[in-house]
């Protein structure tokens, strides 16, 4: 947009808080075209502004969008065979992803080295019930062991603990200090099952996004000389800058120490290593050896764009390897509502899909090492996905929640 600051100025104009130079800038813009002038008149008139606001009301706008879209799709048979996907809700980043999710109903893969079989012989079995993609949701475990299901349907104060208010809003959880803390430190845990993801704002303002099948444990208020959390599964963290170090314990095998950075940790049990990928700032990663001999402890410091993998080496001790040629975008694709399969093997892809669709994948034949490329939104139903696989010549059979793949 050419007039980037104009909407903001118009907003101030509505409020009557324009500064003198802003006023001039707006007058210049107004004088540039009759359309601009009419827009200012519209804003100045309560009746016309009310009408515009009514049209832009999220529900009304959505209804408008769908009314027109259906009319268009009804008119063209070539386009109308694929139904639209349901829209997911959540926080802003998730909303952005939802736009894509609503939009993209086609899955496309390109096999990099796989022979395409003759068409026909398609073995997608008829599946009575659609397996839907995952959505926002989690379980909150309070310090007393009680559990609260967090989903987008509920909003408001979830609990009050030790001077901190826990609030569910826009599908995410936030901790707001509400009064003086009393007593000792209390810990909360958020767990996402398979097929759910969730984001939470910790008491210090740090934000954590949990992928499916993940947990984060943290105190309801940070005190003392370090901010300590524990995670499993896959979590993306945007740590608020502070002089108090932020420590992440991963599966009790790796610890990450930061002051204020953005990074992703993938530590699923069924992945071969714990991968930490740094987007911003700097982090120090240390392996935690099983036999707590300090000499076995390895430490590395990452620069943005680097990834550290901690895995058990040949001697039984954890080893850290650092690579600089990772695609950061690919690593955090999940957080942005996408699967990015660039260069991944079928086995790797399926492990992600198992968590998101809450399915189990079994293989027939040696196809796990097959390389795939392509992207897909996380809003696609499993059936849409299977059609994409089928085009590659990977045949699928879905029985209940077990997906059988064969060449």
């Amino acid at each position, binding site marked *: *947009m*050419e*007039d980037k600051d*104009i*909407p*903001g100025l*118009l*907003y101030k104009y*509505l*409020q*009557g*808080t324009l500064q003198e130079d802003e006023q001039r800038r707006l007058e210049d813009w107004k004088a540039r*075209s009759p*359309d*601009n002038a*009419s*827009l200012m008149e*519209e*804003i100045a008139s*309560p009746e016309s*502004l*009310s009408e*515009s*606001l*009514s*049209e*832009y*009301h*999220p*529900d*009304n*706008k959505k209804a*408008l*969008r769908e*009314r*027109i*879209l259906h*009319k*268009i*799709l009804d*008119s*063209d048979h*070539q*386009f109308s065979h*694929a139904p*639209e996907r349901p829209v997911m809700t959540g926080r802003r980043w998730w909303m952005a992803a939802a*736009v*894509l999710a*609503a*939009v*993209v*109903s*086609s899955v*496309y893969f390109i096999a990099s080295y796989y022979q395409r079989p003759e068409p026909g012989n398609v073995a997608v079995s008829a599946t009575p019930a659609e397996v839907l993609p995952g959505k926002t949701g989690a379980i909150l475990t309070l310090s007393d062991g009680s559990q609260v299901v967090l989903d987008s349907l509920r909003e408001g104060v979830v609990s009050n603990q030790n001077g901190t208010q826990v609030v569910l809003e826009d599908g995410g959880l936030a901790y707001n200090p509400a009064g003086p803390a009393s007593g000792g430190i209390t810990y909360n845990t958020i767990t996402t099952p398979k097929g759910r993801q969730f984001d939470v704002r910790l008491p210090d303002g740090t934000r954590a996004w949990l992928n499916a099948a993940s947990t984060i444990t943290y105190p309801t208020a940070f005190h003392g000389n370090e901010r300590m959390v524990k995670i499993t599964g896959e979590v993306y963290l945007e740590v608020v800058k502070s002089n108090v170090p932020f420590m992440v314990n991963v599966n009790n095998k790796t610890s990450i120490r930061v002051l204020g950075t953005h990074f992703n940790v993938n530590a699923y049990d069924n992945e071969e290593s714990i991968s930490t990928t740094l987007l911003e700032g700097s982090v120090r990663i240390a392996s935690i050896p099983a036999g707590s001999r300090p000499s076995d402890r390895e430490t590395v410091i990452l620069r943005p764009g680097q990834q550290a993998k901690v895995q058990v080496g040949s001697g039984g001790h954890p080893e850290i390897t650092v690579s600089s040629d990772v695609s950061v*975008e690919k690593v955090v*694709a999940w957080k*942005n509502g*996408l699967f990015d399969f660039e260069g991944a093997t079928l086995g790797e892809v399926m492990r992600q899909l198992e968590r998101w669709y809450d399915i189990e994948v079994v293989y027939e034949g040696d196809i796990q090492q097959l390389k795939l490329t392509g*992207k897909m939104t996380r809003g696609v139903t499993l059936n849409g996905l299977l059609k994409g696989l089928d085009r590659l010549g990977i045949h699928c059979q879905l029985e209940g929640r077990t997906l059988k793949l064969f060449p």
Partner: protein
Amino acid sequence: MSANHPYEEYDLVQRFQAGDIGAFTEIYDRYYFLIYQYAKRWLPNRQEAEDVVSETFIKLMQRRGQMESPAKITAFLKVTARNACLDILKHNKVKSARHADLLQHLLLTSAPDFSWLEVREEFLRLVYAEVEKMPRKMKEIFLLSYKEGLKPAEIAQRLNLNVQTVSNQKSNAIKLIKIALGQSFILFPLFFPVAFNDIFEILYK
């Protein structure tokens, strides 16, 4: 419009040309409201404006073979939307003086300029972003009054509030936005003769 999408523009256009409905919907989502606003500017009623939008996109789909670049798509949408508006105005000019008048006007303009429409859409988005920050009850009143054009009595009934208070709120809904910004919040009760306690009760319920 910005195109901060993970999908490359080129890829999007290619998929659209290949008949991918997802790609079409992505393009639709970028432009439908702009075109709707444009049509609303020139046509007396909503239904006509909606028809312009659907017709414009139907034509875009039919001609997708020629749409090799994002720039082509944008240019095509603008010209087609203008022509669709002209058609409707021409068709109705005998019946309605308003249509005839608008037709004269529109004929004098050349290619549609979307930049002010982008400004308008962004402005409206900003207003709703501020509404999101309002205290819950106030936000509810605001959204209800704009969603269905509800009258104060109806809002009161739905939200279980006192009619008189809602009436004050509703008639000043625009000004509520100012208040949401923090500015003159304390002055609010001075401007509007509502009991101080009532206001706080409503805003923070």
